[in-house]
């Protein structure tokens, strides 16, 4: 097994390279965690579906539109077939999709046929009666308000960093690989090279743990929205997933240099096994 070349003054440069490599590893882990949680539409959709927000919203919309029907002097029975949990889910997710991909025509309005439904199933309207039209208008306005994405300002604020996070991810990955390559060139011995890699891995893992702890317990995100807010649980789930993601991604990134060290050790042991035994010759690592 050959040794890396020796460079004069390489030791100090090697430390700087390890420092830069550590920072790049942490930034890469952070970017990966953000891309997997806060910036991912699937994560938000999963949080919405598992937080009970949709059920609460469905009940609230049904109650309010039922009130509009009573004020219009008619029954609210047909509304239960129009305002279904599936319709609420589709409406909320469609509006949320607009934040990620830009708005499209809202096709989720379930009240388009309300007038016909009431005329067919309840009673035909007298000539001067305008109740069904007004009921439809009120229900549509309430639907538009109710389908608004919870904490949309916060989500929009995060989404504006999508490009920055993507650039940071690729740039830090590239720099990390560059630092590992430079570490190989600067290390006088394989042991020094492996030590440098382990420094980077340790720093990445430790920093990831510290950041995860700060995000989970030090950032105070649980107090950013009011506890009584129906979006509170949803927000805590959405943002709270970032801390474990940071830790996981830090472990994943730290596995890269650790894996390289493991590979070097395997190669060393193979070389040692193949070398003829001689008391005066010791494999140098």
């Amino acid at each position, binding site marked *: 097994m050959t040794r890396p070349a020796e460079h004069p003054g390489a030791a100090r440069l090697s*430390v700087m390279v390890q*420092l830069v490599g*550590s*920072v790049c*590893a*942490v*930034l890469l882990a*952070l970017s990966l965690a953000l891309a997997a949680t806060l910036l991912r539409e699937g994560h938000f959709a999963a949080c919405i579906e598992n937080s009970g927000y949709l059920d609460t*919203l469905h009940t609230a919309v049904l*109650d*309010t539109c039922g*009130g509009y029907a*009573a*004020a*219009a*002097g008619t029954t609210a029975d047909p509304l239960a077939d129009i305002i279904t949990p599936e319709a609420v889910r589709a409406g909320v997710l469609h*509006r949320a999709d*607009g*934040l990620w991909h830009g*708005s499209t025509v809202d096709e989720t309005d379930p009240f388009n046929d309300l007038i016909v439904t009431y005329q067919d199933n309840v009673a035909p309207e007298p000539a001067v009666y*305008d*109740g069904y039209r*007004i009921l439809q*208008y009120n229900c549509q*306005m309430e639907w*538009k*308000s*109710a*389908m*608004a*994405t*919870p*904490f*949309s*300002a*916060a989500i*929009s*604020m*995060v989404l*504006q*960093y999508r*490009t920055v996070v993507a650039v940071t991810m690729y740039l830090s990955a590239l720099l990390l690989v560059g630092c590992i390559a430079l570490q190989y060139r600067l290390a006088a011995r394989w042991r020094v090279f492996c*030590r440098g890699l*382990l*420094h980077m891995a*340790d*720093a*990445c893992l*430790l*920093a990831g743990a*510290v*950041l995860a702890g700060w995000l989970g317990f030090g*950032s105070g*995100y649980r107090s*950013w*929205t*009011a506890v009584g*807010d*129906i979006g509170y649980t949803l927000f805590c789930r959405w*943002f709270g997933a970032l801390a474990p993601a940071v830790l996981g991604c830090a472990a994943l990134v730290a596995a890269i240099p650790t894996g390289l060290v493991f590979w070097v050790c395997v190669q060393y042991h193979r070389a040692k096994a193949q070398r003829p035994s001689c008391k005066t010759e010791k494999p140098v690592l």
Partner: protein
Amino acid sequence: MKETHSGKAVSSHSKRKNVVLSLVFCVAAVCVALLVLVGPGHSLAGAAQRSGVDAALPASIDTTTSDNTAQPTEAPTAPPQPAAVNINDFGGYPSAGDALGEIKISGTSVDCTLYYGDEDAQLDAGAGIYPGSKIPGEGGTILVAGHTATFFRDFEHAQNGAQITVTTVYGTYVYEITDMQVATDTDTSAYDLDAAEENIILYTCYPLGQTALTDLRYFIYGRFVSGPALEGLS
């Protein structure tokens, strides 16, 4: 023996050096990461406080007095208020940076704090009134700006006939959206600051949701519906 002792000392020194180096790199990486996260974190905390869920929850209406044979009613309007209020009873005319109240657009998730002044500090925390225009109740044009990436993102769901509600400490003002248009940022014909009748104009960058610099603006125009007139203006 001495060589063994010195060898052990070198070994333990080397281990300590490894640990110290790892810790130093960890601290440096954490500092860089925190530097990167703190700014957006503050903005996110402020934006999260304006969750928009209040706008998402349908308003409850009083059906206890409804008569089944009576004429059907429209959506509820603002509660009764005095015809006029004196601004000096509420701390006087606002200064730049003062939080004036809340602004909402029905049918959208636009629901944020309204500030007097449209500098970065105000627009980072909500919507801001251009100081060269009027405030609600003063009469004339109220020109309100907001960032399209955050608080005014949902302009695309605003429709003609929807209500813009401005809730201040001295009264609640309702405006009805009458028109929307896209114009360049230098097109002064897009707004009339000398209008005599009270009206509100909201504007943000266009295309909606864009974070890059753009010279286009999306304007929403609202006519005055209700709210107390302001007195005590010097």
